[in-house]
């Protein structure tokens, strides 16, 4: 089960080390670790930190833009609301004026019509009176005429 690579790479001695056997492993490990730090710094820490930083920047700017847009939208909505309210007030006023005018017009027209009707009635009454008087006068003439004829007849025959 001995791996041939290890046999090639190593020369085995019979020296027994013990748990606290310090040797060249120590400085080698330190150097290897510093190498690992250098490699991980360029393959792991810096790229990922840069990515995270640029992402944070992106999120911040996008967030700010969104906030600005939201503020703008809110301002626009307020303006629209104000305009709508103004327009509504204007419309209300116009309706009120129109209604008042219409009422006035109606009243005027009715009054005029009534006055005209009264005038006509009065005229008709006057005409009627005149005709009545005329007819009466005519009748009176006829009555006297007739009564004279009746008298003549009575007197004449007697």
């Amino acid at each position: 089960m001995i791996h041939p690579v290890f046999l090639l790479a190593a020369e085995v001695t019979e020296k027994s080390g013990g748990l606290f056997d310090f040797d060249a492993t120590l400085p080698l490990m330190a150097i290897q670790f510093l190498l690992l730090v250098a490699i991980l710094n360029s393959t792991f820490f810096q790229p990922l930190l840069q990515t995270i930083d640029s992402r944070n920047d992106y999120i911040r700017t996008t967030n700010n833009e969104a906030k600005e847009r939201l503020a703008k939208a809110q301002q626009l909505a307020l303006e629209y609301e104000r305009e709508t309210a103004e327009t509504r007030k204007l419309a209300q006023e116009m309706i009120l004026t129109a209604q008042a005018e219409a009422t006035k017009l109606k009243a005027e027209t009715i009054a005029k019509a009534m006055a005209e009707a009264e005038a006509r009635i009065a005229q008709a009454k006057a005409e009627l009176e005149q005709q009545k008087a005329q007819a009466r006068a005519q009748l009176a003439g006829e009555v006297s005429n007739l009564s004279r004829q009746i008298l003549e007849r009575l007197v004449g025959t007697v």
Partner: protein
Amino acid sequence: MMIHLAALEVGKHFYWHIGNLEVHGQVMIVTWIVMAVLVIVSSLATRNLQRIPGGLQNFMEYALEFVQEIAKTGIGEREYRPWLPFVGSFFLFILVSNWLGALIPWKLITLPEGELAAPTSDINTTVALALTVSVLYFWAGISKKGLGYFAKYVQPTPILLPINILEDFTKPLSLSFRLFGNILADELVVGVLVFLVPVFIPLPMMALGLFAGSIQALIFATLAATYIGEALEGHGEEEHGH
């Protein structure tokens, strides 16, 4: 076969000779595997970086933010950035070492002497890492305050000078022995249990080993960050800051 699998080899090393230096081959082999895993996985994760992360990139970003948090709490929001690769590499290297050591059945690969195990179960590795931490915090302090860094040894009073100097020795000592002891002890416990009862019984211990392995990685990285943070902070600025 079972006896052979479960045999314990403590303190035996697979020596390589480089010139007249001796190197623990079994530590080197597993270290290279651990480093290869780290480098390959991180390269794969950052090969095609997206604004909206997915899959491996997402996972590695999570890992990055985890170690970033460790570095931030230890060193502080303003100054952690240059030290992040070190703190993060401590965490990732120790974590992957511990987990690979616990998860891969290394005993199936037989060496002429010694056995493959987590690199962190060798005292050389942990001392190397701990001394790196010492160098880092000295470097941090001196690069920030120049020779004024050494003024902290006589603060708050010169009486504490011996204790302050002693601290520089106890820090790497405790760092290295904590990690070494935990990982080696776990391997020994699992080894002994496997030797006594080969099935099922060692499983909870193995799970505990995984847990302990991640905790040790966290502790090492946190302490490294704290030591660097302490060196950067200093007494004068601390009073100023609070």
